[in-house]
């Protein structure tokens, strides 16, 4: 597989996870720049060109609420999870765990199957 194909698939895989990561990180109030730093520190680096439009989309869907507030003499927009967002995050986390469990099962079965094939062939 070419590195370009891998990169496209990797981005596709991460796209859904990013929403989950953003919603999870916004259980506590953050403004854009600190949110980006937090995500990067936890291995979920996201560029600003993706993050801000995503925040706007999630807010438009009613999952986030935001307010402009002055902090350190500068106006900043703070985001946090809305009550609806908390509910959706709970469902999404359950879904993610279910996908994770299913994938692990498939992997386990495949690994066992491969071992069995190897043993039979010997």
């Amino acid at each position: 597989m070419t590195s370009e194909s891998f990169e496209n698939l990797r981005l596709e895989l991460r796209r859904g996870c990013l929403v989950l990561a953003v919603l999870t990180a916004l259980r506590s109030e953050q403004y854009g720049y600190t949110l980006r730093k937090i995500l990067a520190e936890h291995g979920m680096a996201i560029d600003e060109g993706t993050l801000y439009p995503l925040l706007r989309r999630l807010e438009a869907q009613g999952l986030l609420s935001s307010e402009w507030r002055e902090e350190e003499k500068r106006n900043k927009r703070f985001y946090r999870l809305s009550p609806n967002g908390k509910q959706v995050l709970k469902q999404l986390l359950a879904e993610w765990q279910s996908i994770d469990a299913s994938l692990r099962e498939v992997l386990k079965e495949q690994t066992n199957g491969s071992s069995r094939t190897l043993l039979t062939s010997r």
Partner: protein
Amino acid sequence: MDLLERYLQAVKFWLPKAQKQDIIAELSEDIRSEIEEKESTLGRGLNEAELSDLLKKRGRPVFVANRYLPQEQLIGPVLFPIYRLVLKIVLACYLVPAVLVWIILMVFNSGYRAAHANVLETLGSIWSTLWFSAFVAAAAITLVFAILERVQFRSRLEDWNPRSLPAVRKNANLIPRFGSIVEIAANTFLVVWLTTYNMSSTTIFNFANFQVFLSPAWRYVFWGFLLLALVNIALAAANLARPYWSASRATIRLLSDVGGSVIFASLFKIHILTGFAATDVSPERAAEITSAINFWTGKMFAAAVVFGVIILCIDAFRIFRVKWCASPAPKSTSTVIA
């Protein structure tokens, strides 16, 4: 900071009016936070080159603004394959006949040919006309599909019935055995007729009360037809044994049809009939009829050429299909026939 203001202004230009201020305020705050952090790490203010570098990494203003815009498409992924197919069909249906008409006019119409003596100029004028017409046709189709996209026509496409799907197509390279048998029979009949009834002579249908006289050129036509009939019998026999077109047999068919078309078309042009004699027709009347027949066959020459070109196009397409398009013939023919 002049550079930052210029950058923000450039991004702002592309943003939707209702959100301009809000997005720019947030973007400005984000960039200022990054600058602040860098300055605190360096222990000094950023110079213009460093600021320029930071902004460059953020991306061209139009791209940055584009991420905030709703994702729009003129023709969506559902309608796009249909759009592409219609575009191909319409362009082919327009361009191919237009080129054919031009070729026919250039070859057969001396007036048109004289008026367009400068080939380069003519080609340029035809190209610009074709290009403009193709552009208009493509634009019209694009417009129609864009409207269909807007009116959510795709939702109607979602309702469909699997039973209305077309039947499975046969392998296009399959040669029907019945066709090969008919070809062998017809060509064998032709060979027998040409050789048994002394058709190589310039006087054919040589009966007591009726004779047809042909020009000496008929001998070439005779041997040509005889040779082609033998080639066609051999080819049809091979096709009967292996009922799938191969590149070599498709090429032989093309060459055979080239020969056949040339001979057939020449029959209309070379005034092959020199006269006939019948007991109840006077020589003057026979000469008049002969002249009329030659006149009208001469007029039909263009149609014979067009007919030949169509056959050769079909043959050429078959070679293209065999070489590049179709799946290979199965090893066991019985599998497919069953």
